């Protein structure tokens, strides 16, 4: 899964400071959350998807593969609102389903906004390795080292849990253990056979690793004296990234103002 998301090209976004980039993307995210205009939402979806192709660092074909589920995302996030949203101009009614003009556009808006979120998120994720992010958070934002190292260590431990899951399954197969019962009973049986041993084992392992890390002062109080193997600084590349992303979202906004698709500035219901 994680290998799948390792980009093949080095783009400018990958060279930017992860902590700075995180702040930048949170701001972009908040802008998208605040969007009430349908045109701005459509443009944002388009711009960020385009950026994903250019700056994501994947080959085009792989990006297409990543973008493909956006359609499902669009349908799943817009359908309920289209079918059951409030509205006055009735288009179609069948039983409980009531499609109105307002609910239709609100649904479309939600769909495009979800795509914008997804593209923003993927743009960040595909260009930011977790380890670098936590190093940057420790150094730039004074995140307590014990939090950062706990995350980093846990991420490394996760594949072991997966391995244990496979071993457990094989062991159960060898012993001829079968899940009895269907539905809820089967689910309870699954939990008993898998969740309890896997969780208890991972608790034990996490505790062991933590004791070792404490002995090595990983939780140390940090402060200015602490040195880091990977120094993380803010440099001119971050300025370029900042300008690039601000420009992208500004372009989406300006285009929505001057060349509106549908011209609905607030999709919320007003009685």
């Amino acid at each position, binding site marked *: 899964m994680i290998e799948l998301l390792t980009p093949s090209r080095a783009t400018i976004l990958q060279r930017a400071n992860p902590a700075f980039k995180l702040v930048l*993307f949170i701001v972009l995210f908040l802008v998208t959350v605040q969007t009430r205009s349908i045109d701005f939402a459509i443009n944002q979806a388009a711009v960020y998807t385009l950026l994903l192709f250019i700056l994501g660092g994947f080959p085009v074909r792989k990006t297409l593969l990543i973008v493909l589920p956006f359609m499902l995302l669009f349908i799943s996030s817009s359908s309920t609102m289209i079918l059951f949203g409030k509205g006055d101009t009735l288009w179609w009614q069948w039983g*409980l389903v009531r499609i109105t003009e307002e*609910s239709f556009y609100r649904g479309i808006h939600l769909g495009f906004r979800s795509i914008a979120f997804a593209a923003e998120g*993927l743009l960040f*994720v595909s260009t930011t390795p977790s380890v670098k992010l936590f190093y940057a958070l420790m150094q730039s934002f004074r995140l307590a080292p*014990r939090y950062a190292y706990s995350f980093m260590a846990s991420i490394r431990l996760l594949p072991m*849990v997966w391995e244990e899951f496979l071993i457990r399954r094989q062991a159960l197969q060898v012993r001829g253990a079968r899940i009895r019962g269907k539905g809820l009973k089967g689910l309870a049986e699954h939990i008993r056979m898998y969740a309890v041993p896997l969780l208890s084992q991972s*608790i034990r392992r996490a505790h062991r690793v933590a004791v070792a890390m404490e002995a090595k002062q990983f939780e140390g109080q940090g402060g200015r004296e602490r040195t880091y193997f990977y120094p993380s600084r803010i440099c001119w590349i971050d300025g370029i990234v900042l300008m690039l992303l601000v420009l992208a979202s500004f372009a989406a906004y300006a285009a929505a103002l001057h060349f509106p698709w549908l011209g609905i500035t607030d999709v919320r219901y007003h009685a």
Partner: protein
Amino acid sequence: MNHALTMEKRKGLRLSDLLVTILLSLVIGVVYHFWGSVYDLFKPLFFQADELVYGVWFLAPTLAMLLIRKPGVAILAEVAAAHVEIMFGSEWGIQLVLYSLVQGLAAELIFAVFRYRSFRMGTAAFAGAAAALGSLLVDVYYGYVTDYTLWMMLFKYALRIVSSAILAGYLAFALAKALEATGVTQLLRPVSKRDYEALDHD
């Protein structure tokens, strides 16, 4: 024993608490990731039937809190579980972090109201329901759910709250009990001075 006692004095989360919480939550986060398909399976059952299994997405904060029993664990657990979604590059990535913050905080508040002393099934069920309410709060802001027709909104969220109380409350409690039976919780909550004193009184 001396070591355990000096550790007891230091309040707050130690590295081992953090590591256990985060690893546990990451494992549950992987379940969260694949739970999406289970959620989709329930969809055709009946209208909004998918809400019936929504509660699993609030499992991390209650389970972690029932095991570790320290302030701040619930919110950390939910955020860490959401982090899996970012690692896997899910299209829900960033929004889920926002959701997880509010949901974790809501669950945390319930435990805080009981001053981190009550870890019974009822408390866990309340915390699960609170997390569901937290998700409603974000939904209102983010997905305009108040613009659904009224019956639809009530039905949807009533199902979700019930599901959360059962899955994030009862199921988490049962899991915590099962884990306690394996003895791992002795690592997390070593006997304290108070426990020894309690023995003297008998």
